């Protein structure tokens, strides 16, 4: 139960961070040039209209009041009303975040799988042709602008080969998927809708490929370096010198030890992935969280920007927490109680 205590304490530590995030986003949003009210009211609005609309969104209040109201809303789980759409931010967020998380997590999972297998393979054959080629290819993948890669994949995968569905939406219309979480694969699994699952999967392939190609390199580099370090460590040498069989060496002495440094990096990469979705979603007409947040930002939709940034930050720190826990589980040296 040390782990539980560790998690609890880390969660507690998150509170000030998230509070800081709340303050920073609140202020940052408000110093942004541009006026959300003007951008929604349209050109025909008079000063009186503007004042009325401002009052409606509480934007006529002094800043501290607005902040307190915002905090109060947050405390009750109310993320406010979107200025653009007039709808509840919480409800909009709910349908947007699922698919994006699904996309990012899936990409990260693919990247982690690739990085782990290739990284260890590469380290065991360090400095030979295979190793060198894997590294260079990964680097090249990492050097591509993601939006550009996405376009090329669409052109080839959809337009030329016709293997993948059109880059519009996330699932074939008419599969009768009931939305629960908003994440199509998850929903399809939950409702046992096989057709929808396959369809959603087909739609996911290209965006996931795009994201994973650009995020694999740093993970791969880390796994390979760690594995190499382990292979050269006295500990591994000792095990090998005691004549342990290859399989045991790899499973018991190499893999886990090589992965201990991966979780924090994976969390960082997750953040990179979340950032990238803004672009990738645009290219694939994915209509997830990134597009929503970007639109909010462009129209200075304060509640939307606040909520989206806060939620991203919350996800991000949560992922870091998970990474810490996973690392603590992988690496007994990480001090769980101190």
């Amino acid at each position, binding site marked *: 139960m040390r782990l539980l205590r560790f998690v609890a304490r880390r969660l507690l530590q998150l509170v000030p961070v998230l509070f800081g995030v709340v303050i920073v986003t609140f202020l940052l949003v408000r110093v942004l040039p541009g006026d959300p009210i003007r951008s929604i009211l349209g050109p025909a609005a008079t000063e009186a209209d503007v004042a009325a609309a401002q009052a409606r969104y509480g934007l006529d209040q002094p800043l501290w009041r607005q902040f307190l109201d915002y905090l109060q809303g947050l405390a009750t789980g109310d993320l406010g009303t979107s200025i*653009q759409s007039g*709808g509840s931010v919480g409800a909009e967020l709910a349908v947007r975040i699922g698919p994006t998380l699904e996309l990012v997590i899936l990409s990260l999972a693919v990247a982690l799988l690739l990085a782990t297998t290739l990284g260890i393979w590469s380290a065991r054959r360090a400095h030979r042709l295979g190793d060198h080629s894997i590294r260079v290819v990964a680097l090249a993948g990492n050097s591509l602008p993601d939006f550009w890669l996405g376009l090329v994949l669409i052109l080839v995968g959809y337009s030329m080969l016709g293997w993948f569905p059109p*880059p519009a939406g996330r699932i074939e219309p008419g599969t009768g998927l009931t939305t629960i979480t908003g994440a199509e694969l998850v929903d399809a699994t939950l409702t046992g809708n096989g057709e929808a699952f396959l369809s959603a999967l087909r739609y996911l392939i290209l965006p996931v490929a795009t994201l994973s190609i650009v995020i694999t390199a740093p993970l791969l580099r880390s796994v390979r370096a760690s594995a190499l370090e382990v292979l050269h460590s006295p500990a591994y040498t000792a095990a090998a010198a005691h004549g342990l069989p290859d399989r045991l060496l790899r499973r018991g002495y190499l893999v886990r030890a090589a992965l201990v440094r991966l979780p924090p990096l994976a969390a960082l990469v997750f953040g990179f992935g979340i950032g990238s979705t803004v672009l990738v979603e645009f290219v694939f007409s994915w209509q997830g969280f990134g597009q929503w947040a970007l639109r909010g930002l462009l129209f200075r939709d304060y509640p939307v920007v606040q909520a989206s940034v806060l939620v991203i930050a919350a996800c991000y720190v949560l992922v870091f927490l998970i990474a810490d826990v996973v690392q603590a589980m992988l690496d007994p040296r990480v001090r769980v109680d101190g």
Partner: protein
Amino acid sequence: ARDDADGTGAAGDGTLRIAVPSYPSSWDQDFVGFDPIALMLYKNVFPYLIDYGVTTVDGAEISDTENIIPTFAESFEPDAENRVWTLRLREGVTFASGNELTAHDVKWSKDRAFAAQANVAGIYRLIGLTEPDQVRVIDDYTVEFHQAFPSALTREIQAISLYVFDSQEAQEHATDDDPWASDWIAGNPPSGGYFRVESATQGQEVLLSRNPDYPGPDPAQIDQIRLTVVPAASNQRLQLQNGDIDVALGMSQRDVADLRELDGVAVISAPSNEQVAIQMSVETAPFDDVNVRKALAYAVPYEQIIANVYGGDARPVQSLVPLDMPGYDERGYPYTYDLDAARAALDEAGLDSVQAELVFETDNETQQQLAVLVQSEAAKVGIELELTPLDPGTLAERRNQKNIPLQITSGQMWVNDVEYLLATSLTEGAALNYSNYRNSEIEQIYEESHTVVDEAERNQLWLRVQELLAEDVPWAIICQPNFNLPVRDHVTGWVQPVDGLARLQHLSSSS
């Protein structure tokens, strides 16, 4: 791609697939934003009581601004003075909920519009409607609109404003904090106009189906329309090419040019009243000097813009009054591309060179191209332009501060009348008057025009207006691009809307 990549499959299931660049931000017409896609959708899914008819000009069908017909309503007629308008409703018309559409719905909807103090309330001012009292329920099927003054614009203005909510249903969702049920209305599609919203997936797609309860003329031709959000123009293009969509709303000019060549794809073309202009702030230096404004007007490469930016698919204009608007006169804008004249004008202003900021919309490729061309030419006569793309939020704020020296504007008058043009764009304090232009004689003519209903008389006034504008040059008017709509070639029945907001009921699929 699907198996039916040959493009014939669409009609089979009676569904037309349309790609739009963004998801409508809200279902509420009163309280929220100015969003072209949403506005377009509203035209099709809100019960509008009257709407434009259709007429044919040069072989293209366009909406008929002279002939406004009742749709959900039975009639909409003025009294002798043109001041009190009586709206008669059909009996037995129901909303999707089963509630009957009555005068109370009209009243509640108009009260709501006044309460919102936004879109509709704004235009109603032009026809002298400012107070809820002015809308009176006579009986269950009769509503009167008591205007403060008679107006020639009433029909056209009401054609774009007379939509109703299912007030009974809406009121069920009203709360003390939210008496107009804004929350509910924002999130729930309206009851149905020509079409009903079958389903809407946030951010992704909207499925429309023909409204079986539509009582009026011109019902929807197609059973179902699937609007899919595809923000990237290149994606729209690919999908159109592969037959995965039938209509692409939101493609750039350059794509249109290539698409004409493609098999299975047709480009529907129609003249439009969209005006592209550079508005010059007449109050900020250096454009407070009319000669500087003239210099710029002479430095704009009009023909080159039409050729390069619009691929020749635009009409040159000789007035700030749009080409197809009654009263258009060639004397309104006597400026052509003439660098010598531009230099001369600048000399007259006593300046060697001027510097200014040219603002345009950040994600608008056409405006950007145009800005680049203008920048390059203007530089030749000593007008150094700094190009500033602005995102919508900042643009709105800067416009409100009225300190943008030059900005590219493009848009279409929702009402095809010079009075409306003056009201919205060329009189003091007008919303679209980014130039801060003010000419006392024009103000006077504008006041006068409210009550002038005779056509010839009005045209006289408009001629004078155009003469004055020619002297003052508040805008460099660039051209009127044609409307182009890339579609699969089986799509027919496009009617070019006067306000640029597609009426999808006319569309059909021929195969």
